C-alpha cells in the first residue's frame, strides 16, 4: 500500500484530485454516495449510514437497521425456509448467499418490537437477500406477521426494500402481492394502524402491493421508489427518464408519500405516529 510509504496526511480532497487514487486508497477507505456523488471517508458513516452531504440512506441489512431502531425486539418465523417451486437451476446457491450476507432465513425480518416505547409488529425487508425480492416465503413471513398483529391487536410497521417479484419463483412470487395485501386489509378492517417506510430501493411488485397501502407512508431521503425499471421505461418511451424521476422526493410531489424522514429521526417519528396515528381508545 503506497499510502503508508508517504506522509499519512491524505484528505478527501487529495484522493479526489489524484488520478492514481485507486492505487493509493485501501479498498473500503472511501465511500461514494450513489445519490449526490460525494466521496468521503468511510469513517464518517455512523450506524445510520447516511451521506454527510445529501442525507441519502445507504442500503442497510435488516439487522443493521434493527440495531438502532428498537429498544427491544423478538424475531418471529425464523425457521421458515425459502421454497423452490420452479426447481430453478442454481437457486439454492443464491439463497445460501443471501442467508450468509444477511443472517436471515428470507428477504424480510419479522417480529415484535418496541420503538420509542411503542409496541408494534415489525417487518424489515433486506435488500441484500436476493435484492429483497418477494419470494413465496417472504410473503409468508409478512402474512403471518400481519395476521398475528391483527389477532393481537398490534399496529404494524413495514420497512420496504425490494427489487420486486422473485423471478426464480415465477407465478408463486406474483401471488404474494395479493396474499399480503389481503392480510393488510383485514388488519385495517380491524381498525389497526399500518405504517410503511419506503427505503432504497422499493420497486416492482412490492410497490404495486403492500408498500402502497400504508395508512401513513414515510420514505427515506432520495430512496428509489418505482414500479417499472428505468431501462424498461426508457426503451418503451424512447427518451431518457429524468435523473430524479423515481426518487422519493418526486413521488412525494405526485402525492403518494406522506413525508420524507431522515434516518436519524425515524425512531422518534415512528414512535409518535404509533402513539397518535391510529385509534385512540385503548
Amino acid at each position, binding site marked *: 500500500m503506497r499510502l503508508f510509504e508517504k506522509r499519512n496526511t491524505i484528505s478527501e480532497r487529495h484522493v479526489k484530485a489524484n488520478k492514481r487514487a485507486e492505487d493509493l486508497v485501501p479498498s473500503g477507505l472511501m465511500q461514494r454516495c450513489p445519490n449526490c456523488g460525494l466521496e468521503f471517508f468511510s469513517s464518517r458513516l455512523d450506524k445510520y449510514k447516511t451521506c454527510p452531504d445529501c442525507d441519502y440512506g445507504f442500503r442497510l441489512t435488516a439487522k443493521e437497521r434493527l440495531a438502532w431502531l428498537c429498544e427491544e425486539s423478538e424475531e418471529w418465523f425464523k425457521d421458515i425456509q425459502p421454497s423452490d*417451486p*420452479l426447481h*430453478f437451476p442454481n437457486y439454492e446457491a443464491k439463497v445460501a448467499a443471501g442467508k450468509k450476507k444477511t443472517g436471515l432465513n428470507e428477504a424480510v425480518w419479522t417480529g415484535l418490537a418496541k420503538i420509542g416505547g411503542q409496541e408494534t409488529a415489525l417487518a424489515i425487508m433486506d435488500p441484500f437477500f436476493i435484492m429483497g425480492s418477494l419470494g*413465496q416465503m417472504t*410473503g409468508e413471513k409478512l*402474512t403471518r406477521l400481519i395476521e398475528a398483529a391483527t389477532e393481537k391487536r398490534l399496529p404494524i410497521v413495514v420497512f420496504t426494500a425490494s427489487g420486486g*417479484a422473485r*423471478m*426464480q*419463483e*415465477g*407465478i*408463486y*412470487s*406474483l*401471488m*404474494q*402481492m*395479493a*396474499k399480503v*395485501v*389481503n*392480510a393488510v*386489509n*383485514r388488519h385495517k378492517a380491524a381498525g389497526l394502524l399500518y405504517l410503511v417506510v419506503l427505503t432504497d430501493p422499493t420497486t*416492482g*411488485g412490492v*410497490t*404495486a*402491493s*403492500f*408498500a*402502497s*397501502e400504508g395508512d401513513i407512508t414515510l420514505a427515506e431521503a432520495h430512496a428509489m421508489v*418505482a*414500479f*417499472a*425499471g428505468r431501462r*424498461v*421505461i426508457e426503451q*418503451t*418511451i424512447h*427518451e431518457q*427518464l429524468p435523473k430524479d*424521476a*423515481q426518487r422519493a422526493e*418526486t413521488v412525494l410531489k*405526485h*402525492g*403518494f408519500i406522506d413525508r420524507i424522514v431522515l434516518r436519524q429521526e425515524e425512531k422518534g417519528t415512528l414512535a409518535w405516529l404509533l402513539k397518535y396515528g391510529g385509534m385512540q381508545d385503548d
Partner: protein
Amino acid sequence: MTDAMETVRAARASDKLSAHYLRAHLFSDFVELHGDRQGADDPAIVGGIGLFAGQPVTVITTSRGHKLEERLAKHFGQPEPAGYRKAARLVKDAARFKRPVLLFIDTAGAFPGKEAEYAGQGQAIAQCLTDIGQAQTPIISVIFGEGGSGGALALACGDELWMMENSMYSVLSPEGFASILWKDASRAAEAAELLGLTPESLLKGQVIEGVIKQEGSKSAQCREIARVLEEELAKLQKLPVSSLLNRRYERFRKF
C-alpha cells in the same frame, strides 16, 4: 407435453379472440362507462354494464384496439394507472348493487411509461388488489391471451380465474425473464418452459380454477366461455357474502 413457447405464440396471435369480440358476443347489451373519477380515462381498459344470461353484470376488459391510432392510444393493451383506477371504481360500484363482475384479460402488463410512473402505477395496481379483494360481490376473471405480471394480477384477484386454452400467465414475459436472469433474450423458449406459464401447469399449481377449451369457430368458443361463466357465477351467487370473502382470502393465502 405441449411446448410452452407454442402457447406463448398462440396467446399473442393477432387473429385470436379480441376483447371487442367477447363484449359483443357474450353480452346481449353492453353500455360502456368511462373514467376513473380522478381526472383521466384510459382507453386500454373498457368497462361497463352488460347483460349476461338475463342478468346485469359489470364487465371489464383490457383492450388492444384495432386501428394503429387506437393501438397507440391504448399502448397495445397495457393499462395506465387511470385504467386500473377505472376498473377499481367499477368493481366498487358493482358491489354496491350486488352485481357480479366479469373481467377479461389480455395484456403484456401495466404500461411502463414516465407519466404512468408519475401517476402512481404501483399504487393504482395496489388499489385494484385492495378493492377487488374486498368487493362484496362475485368476481370471475378470464385470461384470453397474455396475462403479464402485476398488470394482469390486478384484474385477476377475485374469486376465480379461468384461462383460455391458448393463453399464458406469468410473472414476466419469457423474453424479459431470459434477459434478466441469463442476460440472453434468445433463451425465451427455455424460460417459457421453466416459468410454467401454460394453463395446464397453472391449473396443476392451483393458480387457476380451470381451462376453457378453444374448439371450433370464435362464436363456438364464446358459447363455451358463456357456459363456464354461467355455471361458476351461479355457484358463487349462492354463497353468503362472508363465505365468498373468506374463500377469496384463502384462494391467495394458500400460496
